[in-house]
């Protein structure tokens, strides 16, 4: 009996232990530099492992997981964008239905906007009003940044019974108008009066407009990927469209010449006179001329060669530093390890690279 008791005690010690509490201890990270770059790492869908990286180009220092390390809380599931308003950073966490508000200097969580559906980006109209775009709700959310609360919605629903329209992705402001692109299964740029919060017009562009910018000449540029092969919505040639935001008329359409191409991440340089975008095509099963492309806003044709060839990388996100036009592009590698951010000069010369988090997807320049 004694032997048995000893055996049982021994085995129980082997197999029994206390599990640790999941709440981590917050830490302190502080940066007081004026210029820095936030990298928003999406993380894996439904893993809840998105994160925030802070890069200080001044001393080339990198701080990973700044939100988690500072606050002891996971950022959430699929963080997609960040916008800075004064000293506050608004990090939109898509599949967690919320926006975290942080202090951009010490990364401390100071508030959150909750109760959203599938938020994508936040845009500030005034100190008391901001719009939040949304993938699923067929509406823009109107929020009050002072109270971090949802104050209303602007319906974009066209009651199309065949396809779910209109979602909202990005917003470009011009005058009193907000131009909102509807990307998924759609071909519209909606126009909203920011005084009345009503849809006042819509502009038809090439299928699946995914990104927009306003150049120095106050021209609205819209990049469409054309959809995907076999899509029930149909596939069209990808295109870059120039719109006059005053007349709301399409002025020029630059069509790509490859149906299998998928251009996205349209961005603008610091001077507002050059456009950048990511481009890749899997024509005939192989990657063709993929990379970061750049063109002048006054160009008459699309560029034929990339400024930064993709080579062995898998480019995923693109951002242009509004202070110096440096090109930031991300490589998500195998999407299950920490991704890389490659930094190039405006002319496409590699100047630096840093390691960020899992699936680095977008940038926010301080």
């Amino acid at each position, binding site marked *: 009996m004694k032997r048995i008791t000893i055996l049982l005690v021994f085995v129980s010690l082997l197999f029994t232990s206390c599990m640790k509490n999941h709440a981590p201890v917050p830490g302190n990270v502080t940066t007081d530099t004026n210029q820095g770059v936030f990298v928003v790492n999406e993380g894996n869908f439904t893993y809840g492992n998105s994160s925030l990286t802070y890069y200080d180009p001044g001393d080339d220092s990198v701080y990973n997981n700044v939100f988690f390390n500072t606050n002891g809380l996971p950022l959430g599931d699929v963080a997609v964008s960040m916008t800075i308003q004064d000293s506050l950073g608004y990090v939109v966490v898509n599949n967690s239905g919320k926006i975290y508000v942080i202090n951009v200097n010490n990364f401390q969580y100071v508030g959150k906007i909750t109760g959203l559906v599938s938020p994508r980006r936040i845009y500030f109209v005034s100190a008391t009003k901001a719009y939040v775009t949304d993938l699923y709700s067929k509406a823009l959310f109107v929020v009050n940044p002072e109270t971090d609360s949802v104050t209303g919605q602007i319906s974009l629903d066209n009651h199309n019974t065949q396809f779910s329209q209109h979602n909202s992705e990005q917003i470009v402001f011009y005058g009193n108008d907000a131009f909102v692109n509807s990307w998924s299964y759609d071909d519209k740029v909606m126009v909203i009066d920011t005084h009345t919060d009503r849809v006042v017009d819509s502009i038809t562009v090439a299928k699946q407009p995914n990104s927009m910018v306003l150049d120095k000449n106050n021209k609205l540029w819209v990049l469409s990927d054309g959809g995907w092969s076999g899509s*029930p919505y149909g596939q069209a040639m990808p295109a870059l469209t120039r719109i006059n935001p005053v007349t709301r008329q399409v002025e020029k359409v630059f069509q790509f010449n490859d149906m299998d191409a998928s251009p996205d991440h349209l961005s603008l340089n610091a001077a507002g006179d050059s456009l950048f975008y990511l481009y890749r095509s899997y024509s005939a099963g192989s990657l063709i001329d993929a990379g970061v492309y750049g063109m002048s806003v006054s160009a008459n044709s699309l560029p034929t060669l990339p400024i930064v060839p993709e080579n062995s990388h898998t480019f995923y996100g693109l951002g242009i530093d509004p202070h110096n036009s440096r090109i930031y592009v991300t490589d998500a590698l195998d999407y299950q390890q920490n991704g890389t951010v490659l930094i190039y000069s405006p002319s496409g010369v590699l100047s630096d690279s840093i390691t960020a988090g899992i699936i680095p997807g977008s940038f926010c320049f301080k």
Partner: protein
Amino acid sequence: MLISQFSMAQRVPPDTLSIREVVISSYKPLQEAGRNETTIDTLIMKREADASLSDMLSRYATVFIKSEGRGALASASFRGMAASHTNVEWNGISLQTPMLGQVDFSLIPVYLVNQISLLPGAGSVTTGNGALGGTILLKSDPEIFDGIRLQVLSGVGSFHTFNEFVHFQAGINKLQLSTRIYRNSSRNDFQFYNKSIANIDPQTGTYIYPLQRNTNARYELEGVMQSVNWQPTVHLQVQAHYWFQHSDRVLPRLNTYEGNEHANISRQKENAHRAATEILWTKNRSKLSFTSGLNAEKMIFYMQNPVYGSGYYNVYYSVSSITSNNNRLQYRFEAGKNTLFKVGYGFDFHHVVTRDTVLHTGYDQYRRNNKLFFSWQQKWKKLFSMQVFVQKEWVNNVALPWVPYLGFEWKMPFEHKLVLHGNISREVHYPTLNDLFWQPGGNPDLLPEEGLVSSLGIRYATEWKRMRWSGGVTWFYNDIRNWIIWLPGLNMSPTNIRHVLSRGLEVNLKTVFPVRKLWVFLRADYALNFSTNLGDASRWGNGSIGKQLPYTPVHSGNFLADVRWKNFSVTWVNHAYSERYATYASNLTTRDRLYPYFMNDLYAGKKWSWQKNSISVQVKIYNLFNEQYWSVLQRPMPGRNYMLLLNYQF
């Protein structure tokens, strides 16, 4: 061998347990040589009758169960392989759908089967439906007897959980019937402190972690299974099974979710009709068998969101119909006492139609699998036995590489209780229909996964005084190429990127002995598993290379102690996993890491018997120490919870 004999020992009622009835034999049936098959003890199956197969395997097998939550999707993987590398056969037909390639083990109640066998690694090839990881064989054979039996099992547990099961059996001469009817349901609304979100106290600035309920997590499972065994002559036996099951589950959101309370609610409904028939003709040294099965499943998966001013709408609404027909003809010939040949032909037909009525995506695809196999089993001087197996398979018109298998068992000449066993096989896994055709993102250019799967081990069994021991150690080594994973991009898409090397040890130990008036039964399993990614660093960066695969524990184990006195029993169950990582990231934080998982359950029961009747009462305490834990990141699991079971039999 002794392990299976132990299983036989457990079939006697607890109040009459006696090891003297067990015959220890040195004879090893030819068909088991080198397969390294383990069978779950019937004692355990009785104890866990109300559980799901995923819960039972996590407690009593060295199979890693990845559970998305209580009652939610649970997948199983052997030896560091993927969930899609685990095949499940129910009475000879595969439950692994050609569409998804994996089985949800939370949807298989243990009381529907009366035998569970595990064939890890190369040994699974010999069933004719091999898998890179292994195969789990489920049998629901009617018991052979004359008369009528009835079992009613009723359980009530925490979180409004109700498990009801009725099993009626009848045996009349050469005909046996078995009817099982069941219903499991749970509101599943346990409370937990959510430490993945926090509100800031406006007075003190400190965090307040909310006490939340696991809402939107209810599940229902109901069905009926009818089995017939008919033996009109001594040469002919016919078995037939039919199983219908309906399940309805709401899929909970992650605990980082703080969005609209009515948004992002997903629900999954499934109806499955399964039928299996086996005709077995035996004469002299020949045995001819024909197995045919039909598996028809309809799955509906949708997510709803509120739309401002319009009510709810579906974000997606996917309806999938999967029809599979499995057929196998096998001839077996015993050319003498020590030689056995088998030759067989298998034909499977699959049809999958999947449509999303919102996105208007989907596919309609057929798949035909033809396979031929040959097996030679030989024994020499009762000490050495081996099996050579070879299979050739065609998927539609694509010929897959030959699959050869070699297995052996060798009883040590100096000690017959010590057995050396091993096996090695090449295995091939063809991509699923979703891998190839899913819209958008399916990749029709995917290559089959293939690799070398092997193991080598020893097994020992002995008796010392009145204590019987058995145990074994098995070393395994799997080298898999063209491993398929889905990667994000414009759309999620699968690709062959990984080269995975999986190697490790499995140890098991089992003993039963009397202590005065008590019977004590102890068993323990331990697995050491290094499954590392050896992909192409020049293409995919070196952050993943040499790292343990995500959600694959290096250490896992379980322990059971069962003590019985007269009609009382107390059982302690412990199962444990070492820390697991969700990704390959190198600067890991607790956000990406799952703490070691040590789970303790305690069962106590008593049985009353009179004439041919018996009633037993069992109380189960799960998560005895009320641990807060996760099986998957950001998916809450319940604290201490209870189940009361009442079982009546005559």
